[in-house]
């Protein structure tokens, strides 16, 4: 209901509805679909290789430096792929850092290029303004509270929502796109000794190179959490229907499904 009203406010409900009915207007633009799956692919590569790199030194520090002779901020209770790291485990995992580092950076390039393409599209096509910026009626605590309450009751989204994002979704996507992704790229680059030399203040404001590594770890945890919630919400709404919409661009309506 609320979402339907938003379409009216946006003033293009009639056109949009007609285009939808005619099958002219896809649920997701082709560029959004392509970039979504490219990011998915590179994210998984970054995650797997990131874990592999992490286990060669599962200790985290704050400040400029840190090694097995210094006090860690915290350490993960996992075995390591290096025998110089005291983990308490009596064995050492195989070293996977070589290919992991190669693939980590290659996947990062794919993610960055894809992200830039998505950003350019998002700004110029109005995708961000139309689909991600909360609708005017939702820009209030009340609008947010309604959405939160519906999420907490695990309510299945309405038919209208198959065509739009609710306010909580919008804020989450904006946070991922404009906070988490830039932060993980920044903290990743802040670990490059060559980049650090060229842009020393980019490391200094993070608190040092080891701080950058620790923040990089926490942002990746946040992104994994987002992934879990994202998959959970998609499942709640109908997993294959939504995945199908992200592949073909067409959102099946109830009538079509019968």
């Amino acid at each position, binding site marked *: 209901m609320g979402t339907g009203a938003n379409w009216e406010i946006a003033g293009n409900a009639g056109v949009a509805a007609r285009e939808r009915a005619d099958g002219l207007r896809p649920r997701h633009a082709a560029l959004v679909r392509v970039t979504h799956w490219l990011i998915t692919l590179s994210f998984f590569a970054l995650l797997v290789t990131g874990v592999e790199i992490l286990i*060669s030194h599962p200790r985290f520090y704050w400040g400029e430096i840190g090694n097995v002779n210094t006090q860690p901020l915290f350490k993960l209770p996992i075995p390591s792929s290096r025998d110089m790291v005291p983990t308490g485990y009596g064995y050492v995992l195989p070293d996977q850092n070589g290919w992991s580092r190669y693939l980590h950076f290659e996947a990062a390039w794919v993610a960055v290029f894809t992200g830039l393409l998505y950003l350019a599209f998002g700004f110029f096509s109005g995708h961000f303004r139309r689909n991600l910026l909360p609708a005017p009626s939702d820009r209030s605590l009340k609008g947010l509270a309604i959405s939160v309450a519906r999420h907490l009751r695990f309510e299945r989204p309405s038919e209208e929502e198959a065509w739009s994002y609710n306010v909580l979704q919008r804020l989450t996507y904006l946070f991922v796109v404009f906070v988490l992704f830039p932060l993980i790229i920044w903290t990743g680059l802040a670990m490059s000794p060559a980049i650090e030399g060229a842009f020393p203040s980019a490391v200094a404001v993070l608190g040092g190179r080891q701080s950058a590594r620790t923040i990089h770890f926490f942002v990746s945890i946040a992104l994994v959490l987002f992934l879990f919630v994202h998959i959970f919400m998609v499942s709640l709404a109908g997993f294959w229907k939504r995945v199908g919409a992200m592949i073909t661009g067409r959102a099946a309506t109830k009538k079509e499904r019968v």
Partner: protein
Amino acid sequence: MSKISRRKLITTGLAATAGASGLAVAAKLARHYGLVPPDSGVLYGAGETLTYAAQRLLTRHSMAREFSRSQISEKPFANEVAPLGDEFKRLQQVGFAEWRLSVDGMVAQPTSFSLAELRSFPSRSQITFIACEEGWSYIAEWSGAPLSHVLGLVGTLPQARYVVYRSFQSDWWESIDMADALHPQTILTLGMNGGELPIGFGGPLRMRVPRQLGYKNVKYLTRLTLTDSLKHFGKGLGSASPEGGYAWYAGI
């Protein structure tokens, strides 16, 4: 589904051709300006080439961060090294008086230097961090002769593009491009934190390339070879690292 029109087919074809030839031109230009690393042909070589090219374009002349004396690590970590053997022990017993650093390849005068000769050269001290690809790091003061000084002394030929350097440990050898070789912070390191460079940290002589990770900083340095091509060194991938699965360029 709409039929693919002839116009669409032609424009797509033209765009694809333009894209492919654009890539070919870019590859040629990149090779010309030394933006292609020697391990560009490995499985993940595309990403590696992008990283190396981007860093060379952005950071060719930038200086590694230097720190204050108070930031020097109290307990630096030496990392483990393979046993150095009896010959090394023998050299150590005589205070490394017989240790030589030979310089050959594309130079006017192939020369070998003793540690005393290297110590007599203009020295540079810098407080920089060294970071392992695993994630740990420490800060120390390193001192020694800038590599660029030695390369000047031996008369490096203008066509030289890389310096290949070897360790007393025969399976550890590396190479760097001239941007790093002539960089003022790249030093033939003889001292650490005011004293002699301890053996655990690579003494008596270590290559320090502070804009690259630990494994490019070869310990127990014995030989430099200047070359215009890395094809005939090892498997032609630039150094021992890519042969062991690690990237040749370690600026990230």
